[in-house]
């Protein structure tokens, strides 16, 4: 399942809008880069539609990929059509755009919160950069530098040296683990329990390891 960001439009005409959005993206550029976005029009349903074509091209300049709208009234639907955006049902359910035929909400919640597809980063994560994946596993296919930070709700996999800090199970999931090809981390943490570089067994330094949560403390062992 692909996670899609929803951008709720409250005051899209605000001159500060894109500046604020850019700030938001700047906090976590890797997470937002080329991310598909659905525009949630619920708060502005009764307002006059803005020029969605111009609006989406601004979004593309920020490296977001606007794909559709949801909760659009008739006037907004026309604007969305001419901007080449798909009409999606509320809550990301594919379906009609008419709110009166809203599909039945799910009665039963799954027991464990579902995890998203996660995030795969192919470029090196440099010092000072933070990459976070709020609903799934984070995989990095390149080195993670000193002073870089990885945050994930699920597991963290690093196919290369891990020299920065890694926070797995950031929402409190103690089953999350950290895997890396070369352990040189400044700090590893699972569900808030952490070890700093000084606490790591020197014999495991530079080795291919797995970090997991063993009750109240973290364990580190080689990956066969």
């Amino acid at each position, binding site marked *: 399942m692909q996670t899609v960001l929803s951008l709720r439009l409250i005051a899209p005409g605000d001159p500060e809008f894109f500046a604020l959005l*850019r700030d938001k993206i*700047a906090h976590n*550029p*890797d997470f937002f*880069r*080329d991310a598909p976005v659905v525009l949630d029009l619920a708060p502005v349903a009764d307002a006059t539609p803005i020029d969605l074509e111009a609006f989406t091209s601004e979004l*593309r*300049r*920020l*490296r977001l990929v606007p794909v559709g709208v949801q909760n659009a009234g008739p006037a907004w639907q026309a604007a969305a059509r001419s901007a080449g955006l798909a009409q999606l049902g509320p809550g990301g359910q594919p379906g009609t755009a008419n709110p009166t035929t809203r599909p039945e909400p799910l009665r039963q919640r799954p027991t464990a919160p579902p995890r998203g597809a996660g995030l795969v980063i192919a*470029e*090196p*994560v*440099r*010092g*000072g*950069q933070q990459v976070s994946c709020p609903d799934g596993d984070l995989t990095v296919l*390149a*080195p993670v*530098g*000193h*002073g*870089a930070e990885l945050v994930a709700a699920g597991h963290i996999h690093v196919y290369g*040296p891990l*020299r920065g800090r890694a926070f797995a199970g950031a929402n409190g999931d103690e089953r999350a683990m950290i895997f890396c090809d070369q352990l040189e981390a400044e700090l590893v943490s699972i569900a808030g329990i952490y070890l700093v570089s000084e606490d790591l067994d020197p014999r495991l330094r530079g080795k291919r390891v797995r970090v997991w949560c063993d009750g109240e403390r973290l364990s580190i062992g080689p990956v066969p």
Partner: protein
Amino acid sequence: MSQVIVVTSGKGGVGKTTSAAAVATGLAMKGKKVCVIDFDVGLRNLDLIMGVERRVVFDFINVINDGIRLHQALIKDKRVEGLYILPTSQTRDKDALSREGVERVIEELRQEFDYVICDSPAGIEKGAYMALYFADEAIVVTNPEVSSVRDSDRILGILNSKSRRAERGEPPMKQHLLLTRYDLDRVAKGEMLKLEDVLEILAIPVLGVIPQDDMVLQCSNLGLPVVLEPKSTAGQAYMDAVRRLLGETVELRFTTPPKKSFVNWLLRRTA
């Protein structure tokens, strides 16, 4: 096709200005038309290293803010054809650099020059940010020591996320490593990082390794870009880097201790 290249490092005192001056001069010696801009507003040094400090009338900041034309501020180098220097102001600060103003000047320079070299100030504040924002390529100057390598790593992250290319989603900036002050004796003693160690951390291609050379300081005191001093090993290494920048394949020199030849050995024996 005009290329804008930023010379940057994060850390101060690693040789950014020396490198910017050497690379710009080297490119001009190779027949390119080159302009080198000093972005270190308030701490201008480039004009000193280039030996033109006594010819500065107007500067980069005047062109941005005071309606002075670019040609009134550009200083033509008297030694190398096609080399121009755009000095900066000593009395203003980094806030005088507006993004629109910098963009206008760089676009105007692109029309006329093959290469625009931006000499970045140290740090990751506004001046450094303005120097890298419009660049197509980056030369990251690093010394073989841990703090410099860490700062370079940080700058690489900023190049990848905060430049105009990154914001527009264009192909990423080409990044080159220039390892300066490489002292073979200290590397051999383990007091300095080896080239391989630096590469393992930064993981970008090497443009050049510049050996520690006392002549660099002499040249900078004389206002002479070090590539104009043929006896200098650093100058030769910078010229190699320039050739690589132009796409030639040039083997790395000065990265291994010179072989003790039989003649040398004999000379030492008889001395």
